[in-house]
């Protein structure tokens, strides 16, 4: 059970070369309840990756406070980066097991490989994989650590539509088997509606929350593209400013 309370007063990148200092995030406040699937929708370059890096503890250089409430233990974070970030000199299976601390049950990895249809490729080196396969490996790695919080940074970008749909369904299947809090960054509104419990719309930098909307479509009906499209049209009609964020 993991809730997240994010309160970032500001995150500034210092000047580099001729580029002046740049304020990426300003007064960003949001709260996530346990096991919630949240999609962050915002224009490219608005600071979404920066936000995920801050939550993951990779970027401590900001003003504000991130509280991850997991009860007593330190939360485990799974992070699916925008690029798969696999070690090219380790096999698919090694890439996954290396992320696991100490002893682990090989069955868990087997099951995940099976669900993601990568059992055949488990002893292959990543350079032989297609981009879609590499992305699936990085998703398995994030799930294998049994995370309390899962951060996903546009994991399906540059995949063709059928592959993206397939991996999306596999992701939902995994998440429903073992629910945890998910923060999913995208600028594809259809994808966001198909996945999320709640959508958060983010402004261009300095990033802040512009609005939030709960998705009223039942989980079982998310695969129905007509419903997703109808809700998207409704959203765009009600909030035309969303168009500027996509």
């Amino acid at each position, binding site marked *: 059970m993991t809730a997240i309370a994010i309160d970032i007063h500001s995150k500034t990148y210092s000047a580099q070369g001729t580029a002046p200092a740049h304020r990426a995030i300003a007064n960003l406040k949001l709260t996530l309840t346990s096991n919630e699937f949240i999609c962050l929708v915002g224009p490219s370059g608005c600071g979404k990756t920066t936000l995920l890096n801050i939550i993951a503890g990779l970027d401590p250089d900001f003003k504000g406070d991130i509280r991850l409430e997991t009860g007593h233990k330190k939360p485990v974070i799974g992070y699916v980066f925008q690029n798969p970030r696999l070690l*090219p000199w380790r096999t698919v299976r090694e890439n996954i097991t290396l992320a696991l601390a100490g002893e682990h049950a090989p069955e868990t990895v087997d099951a995940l490989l099976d669900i993601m249809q990568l059992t055949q490729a488990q002893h292959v080196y990543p350079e032989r994989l297609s981009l879609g396969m590499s992305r699936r490996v990085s998703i398995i790695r994030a799930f294998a650590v049994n995370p309390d919080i899962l951060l996903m940074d546009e994991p399906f970008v540059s995949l063709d539509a059928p592959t993206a749909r397939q991996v999306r369904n596999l992701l939902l299947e995994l998440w429903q088997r073992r629910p945890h809090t998910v923060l999913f960054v995208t600028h594809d509104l259809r994808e966001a509606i198909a996945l999320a419990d709640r959508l958060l719309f983010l402004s261009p930098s300095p990033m802040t929350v512009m609005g939030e909307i709960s998705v009223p479509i039942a989980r079982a009906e998310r695969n129905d593209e007509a419903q997703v499209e109808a809700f998207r049209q409704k959203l765009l009609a009600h909030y035309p400013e969303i168009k500027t964020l996509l």
Partner: protein
Amino acid sequence: MRLLQNRYRLQLLNALSLLLLLGLWQFLAFYLNSNTLPTPAVVAKVFWQETVSGQLPYHLGITLFRLVVSFTIAMLLGCALGIVLGCNKALDAFFDNWLVIFLNIPALVAIILCYVWFGLVESAAILAVVINKLPNVVVTVREGTRTLDQDLLEMARCYHFGRRKTFIHVVWPQLHPFLMAATRSGLALIWKIILVVELLGRSQGMGYQLHLFFQLFDVAGILAYTLAFVAVIQLIELVILKPLDKKAQRWRR
């Protein structure tokens, strides 16, 4: 099948080129008919005599021992320093001038100074070789460390790899090409320096023997020892370095 044929063809070409070199040598020696360029047969005879008498294996062994010791020290120390300097900007800025100075000290100066300061002893000889090679390794490994993939390091941090796991699985494989470059250039550099070290201040080893042959104007002896040493270095390349490289690069498409 075609690949196999190609490989045989390449090997044949290799053998032919060596034969051509030998032929050229034979022709020149025959044409000049001088003591300063003996024929391959004469050199082979000297090689055999020196091997049977035990002189060549003895001196070659001593030189190889010095090579292994100085190479190991230079590589281990160089890797450690290179990684530290590559990771730490302040230290790097501080020691950068030192590196440039040491890189540009002529080998001969380092050797003479070591002998003058520490005497004509084994450790001075080894130290002189290490001083010549060390800056080279440090610079190569430092450049390698600077180009480490930050994305992969972040990934390792995010998944709590810890220092040991990060070093073995993330850092070391990325440094491998740089280490191989340092090893290869190191071997070539070190054995040439060792000969000078031996020539100037030791009474055994290849350098000492070459000096002796020089005084006697014995070119056949010089060539026999040189060929023996080149063969040993080739063997190291074939038996140790190539397989190591192949194993480390197996993940490439």
